[in-house]
């Protein structure tokens, strides 16, 4: 920090990105200066009549480096989570004969504030030497585990494995009815 012209404050900053090796053919290598580690737990309710998944609680714990602005961090976590929630439950591009059938936000369903679950955030504060002031990325990491956590929670509730997202009501109800048909078919054989 120094003064240039009289009464003008200038701030000079620099960030040196540590050297990293690019991915090789096996997708291995040190690709980033630092890494964020995130974990999430999802608590869901599934309506077996409609197949609708209702996420009640999300527990988020994340290595966030050094926290500079706690409220800004909470915003990043909730925003990332909301994106992950849409990925898990509704967002889907549906193609028919090569044409996108839902090209607007009318049919491509982004979730709204009404769909947000309770977010319980437990930050793990670390000091990362590579990041500025010891901080690291916090906004992208929370959206990565969300879909997996929700899909696993739904599988745990219903006893059906899902191999694709989004878990739309239709997909869930179909899986449920297939499971029930399977059961009755088995019991008939026995």
């Amino acid at each position, binding site marked *: 920090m120094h003064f240039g012209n009289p009464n003008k404050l200038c701030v000079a900053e620099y960030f040196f990105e540590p050297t990293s090796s690019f991915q090789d053919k096996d997708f291995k290598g040190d690709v980033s200066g630092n890494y964020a580690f995130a974990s999430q737990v999802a608590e869901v309710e599934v309506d077996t009549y*409609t197949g609708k998944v209702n996420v009640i609680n999300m527990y988020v714990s994340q290595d966030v480096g050094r926290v500079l602005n706690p409220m800004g961090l909470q915003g990043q976590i909730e925003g990332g989570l909301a994106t992950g929630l849409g990925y898990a439950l509704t967002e889907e591009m*549906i193609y028919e004969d090569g044409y996108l*059938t*839902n090209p607007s936000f009318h049919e491509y*369903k982004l979730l*709204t504030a009404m*769909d947000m679950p309770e977010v319980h955030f437990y930050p793990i504060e670390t000091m990362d030497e590579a990041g500025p002031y010891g901080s690291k990325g916090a906004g992208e990491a929370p959206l990565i585990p969300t879909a997996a956590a929700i899909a696993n929670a739904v599988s745990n509730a219903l006893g059906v494995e899902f191999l694709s997202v989004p878990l739309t009501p*239709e997909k869930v*109800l179909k899986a449920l009815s297939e499971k029930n048909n399977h059961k009755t078919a088995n019991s008939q054989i026995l």
Partner: protein
Amino acid sequence: MNFEIESPLNKEELLKTLSNLQSKKFRFGAGFTDLLIEFKKFNPVETTVINLAQLKDEEFCSIRNDSGEIQIGSLVKLAQICKDTYIKDNFPVLHQAANALASGQIREVATVGGNICQASPSGDLSCALVSLKANCEILNIDGKIRNQAISEFFKGPGKTSLQKNEILKSISIPINHSKNLKSGYIKIGKRSAMECSIVSLAYHFQLEKNGKVKHAGIAIGAVGPTIIFCQETVDFLLKQNINNIDEVLKLKIASMIQNASSPIDDARASAWYRHQVLYNVAKSLFE
């Protein structure tokens, strides 16, 4: 997007504007939540918009409660219905449907008449009104009023029985004969707000003290070309006591409601899903 605009300020001006425009193409706009989107998609050609947002008229703009029926003007905003305590207490189905429609911001500008005249098979408010056996009061350019049951008002997706020289003035709903109600609106969609329903079911039962069904109305939306009033189910229910509906009867009623539907596949959901969910939801009515 290029169009002429006329803004009548009272009923006389409205009728005059309407008769002047008989030979031209025109559209009504009140909340403009659907019209502007439509104009964006299909550029209007030589169209005049009759802007009703500035119209000041008691019959068009208010909810009145007199002479054995409740009258809702077609320019009443959905937020007004949500806030009306009489409707909340006596017609929970209408209150819930208005609350389920789009989002808080849209409910502040969107109007009852707009939702009805759009004649969407998945219209939330229309579905509740069909279950309440509401009556449409339609005004023509000579100032004459025509009454029509709302289930006959809808002719197909986007089609109503409204003629070019007519405008929907208000909706009237017969008041309840019984205070003992079982009434509600079930909307199935992918998200909790800003949603176009995949299946909707509106029900309004008036019961006697012992639980016998005195008056009934059931309407299903988004499972056919128009909103469907389940006449057969209603006739069947009128002979029943709501406390005596057992497992067998419950399933019978559910399949009766299901049989009234004729869903199709679209981007929102498949016909299979609609058919299945309608059955499940109808089943949940008596649980």
